[in-house]
């Protein structure tokens, strides 16, 4: 007889959602989170997109600690001197909220408390070492030599899935599937943020940037999200590029982003309140490991469930939905045929029928594009040259637009046939 029906490893959105769902179904569940307080080791941007939390907390929009709802979504290409931005804002976003900026230390503490209130045993400040096996069957978790037994384990340990790797149920992460995220939270008065970003109370801005000005052709993306009275900003740098350019440091890149002429004024007078760095999963469909086995399921970032198409970066909604799917699978198995690898295969079925794996399939291979020299170097400089060519009044006769584009392309060394091909690929994959 196991001590628990389920042990959930990790108290982020995936783990807490799973724990809430299990506890709501009267299962005896232990949730173990390494950070104390929960969320304090997290480096998510972050915007919580979608309505997945409603699955465990119908009133989450009223009760959860949310910063601002996304009213304005930006995408920008930054070169050394210039920025070309697309800013989409819509009153539709005020009617139906599509995303909220969140501070994870606040949100995760709230979610862990909710899990506890629902009846889960919540333990924080301790790191599980690995899964405990009996033959090939998972019988619990191991920590500091002790085994805590459970009928099933749901792994929700985040982007650095040590337990899964050390237990031999998923391969170590590959450089190309991982990026390093570095983030700062910068304190600014609420009113100042509203003025600088053209926002009213509760309205927020979420921006993604291509940093096309980094030395050594290092590919990195930037993000900037407004919280109530702070700004979360950071960079995501491909691990592969960091490794290849070993003179490049992630902390330099965030400084360069902050000092960019179109970003710096937004941060004036701000005080850095937090500084953190963590892995980011960016591997796409190819990097997803086996999601279940005899007695375990892998959810959230630990399973590589994140999504980025250059316009948005998402992870938390996939985490929540997968956590709920894993919990439901376990509840069904316990009341049905019992726990087995076969029973847990329903978990993958559920994900294939939901946006979690559907999105990953729809945007298969997009990571090759979002991490590619076209987007990261060529595009920003081509756009800059075109805009300067059109707008700079230097006393010379004006050139035709097509001529300017042609020259910009030529200077970039990008063949128009290649551009067409890449453009087509992008169109197909997006």
């Amino acid at each position: 007889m196991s001590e628990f029906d389920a042990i959930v490893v990790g108290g982020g959105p995936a783990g807490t959602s799973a724990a809430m769902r299990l506890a709501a179904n009267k299962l005896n569940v232990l949730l173990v989170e390494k950070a104390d307080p929960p969320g304090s080791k997290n480096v998510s941007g972050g915007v919580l997109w979608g309505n997945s939390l409603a699955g465990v907390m119908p009133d989450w929009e009223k009760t959860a600690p949310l910063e601002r709802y996304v009213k304005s979504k930006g995408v920008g290409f930054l070169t050394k001197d210039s920025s070309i931005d697309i800013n989409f804002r819509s009153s539709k976003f005020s009617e139906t909220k599509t995303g909220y900026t969140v501070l994870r230390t606040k949100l995760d503490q709230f979610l862990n408390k909710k899990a506890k209130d629902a009846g889960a045993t919540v333990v924080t400040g301790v790191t599980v070492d690995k899964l405990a096996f009996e033959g090939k069957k998972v019988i619990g978790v191991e920590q500091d030599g002790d085994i805590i037994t459970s009928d099933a384990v749901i792994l929700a340990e985040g982007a650095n899935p040590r337990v899964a790797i050390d237990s031999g149920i998923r391969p170590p992460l590959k450089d190309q599937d991982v990026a390093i995220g570095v983030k700062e939270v910068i304190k600014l008065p609420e009113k100042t943020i509203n003025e600088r970003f053209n926002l009213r109370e509760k309205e927020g801005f979420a921006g993604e940037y291509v940093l096309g000005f980094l030395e050594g052709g290092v590919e990195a993306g930037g993000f900037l999200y407004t919280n109530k009275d702070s700004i979360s900003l950071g960079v995501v740098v491909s691990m592969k590029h960091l490794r290849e350019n070993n003179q490049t440091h992630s902390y330099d890149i965030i400084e360069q982003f902050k000092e960019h002429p179109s970003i710096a004024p937004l941060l004036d007078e701000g005080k850095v309140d937090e500084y953190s760095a963590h892995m980011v999963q960016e591997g796409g469909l190819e990097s997803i490991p086996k999601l279940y086995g005899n007695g375990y399921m892998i959810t959230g970032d630990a399973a590589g469930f994140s999504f980025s198409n250059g316009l948005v970066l998402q992870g938390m909604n996939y985490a929540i939905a997968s956590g709920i799917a894993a919990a439901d699978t376990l509840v069904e198995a316990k009341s049905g045929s019992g726990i087995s690898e076969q029973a847990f295969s329903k978990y993958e079925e559920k994900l294939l029928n939901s946006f979690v794996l559907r999105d990953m399939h729809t945007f298969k291979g997009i990571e090759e594009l979002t991490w590619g020299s076209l987007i990261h170097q060529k595009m920003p400089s081509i756009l800059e040259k075109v805009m300067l060519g059109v707008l700079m009044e230097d006393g010379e006769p004006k050139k035709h637009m097509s001529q300017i584009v042609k020259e910009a392309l030529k200077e970039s060394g990008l063949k128009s046939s290649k551009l067409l091909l890449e453009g087509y690929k992008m169109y197909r994959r997006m």
Partner: protein
Amino acid sequence: MTLEIVVLIKVVPDGKEVFVDPVNFTLNRSMATNVLNPADENALEAALRIKDEHDARITVMTMAPPFAEPFLLECLSRGADQAVLLSDRAVAGSDTYPTSLTVAAGIKHLGNVDIVFAGEKTSDSSTGHVGPGVAEFLEAELASYSRSCKYEDGYVIAERELEEGVEVVKIPTPAVVTVVTDSNIPRRATLRKKLDAQQKGIIVWSLQEIGVEADWVGLRNSPTVVKKMLPFPTRERKNKVIGVDNLDDFVKELAEVGVLKTGGN
């Protein structure tokens, strides 16, 4: 026979987050999160090391409002066997005298205790009174500023860290040992012990239960009176880098910035 050990702890504001109010020089603790007093972590570890070698039972005790409960649970999670919270509105504002008295009464209420561990001092007031005060009220032997200690047949052998060197003392139990900050590396809580701690829960005693009268304690019955708070004089940094190519010039420069005085013989 089981050794009965008590570890005294205090929850304090994190020193890194406490600021001196620039106007009235009082401590501003409003921004600070609570932590276990650093020296108490070492006191608990010192007790656990004795338990590693001997049959012992460790009771961790604090006099505090209920917000201290998670910290008592944390001590249970590291290996303490039971936790006692001495909690009573009447003790609010007590200085180190009534605190020592109350804690000693709590210890007596537990029964026969062999060793009491405490941190050398707390990081928020730094008096270092309570450990020795408890020793007085218990009429127990005291080894203060201990950096390591062991138990042998009714005696505690403690290394005391003093300004002039290390003194090794051998004192009979019951004994109070106050432990120097950073003198050991505290072990971490384990998942198993954390689960056990949640099962055990915390024993809460009021003053009445331990036989302490309300008019022995509290602000009004504390002999300490704070008359005035003064800022520590600070000197502005010169931020000057001086090369040492020529010793005479170097000495002259130091004299100029006021580090050395010239003259005399």
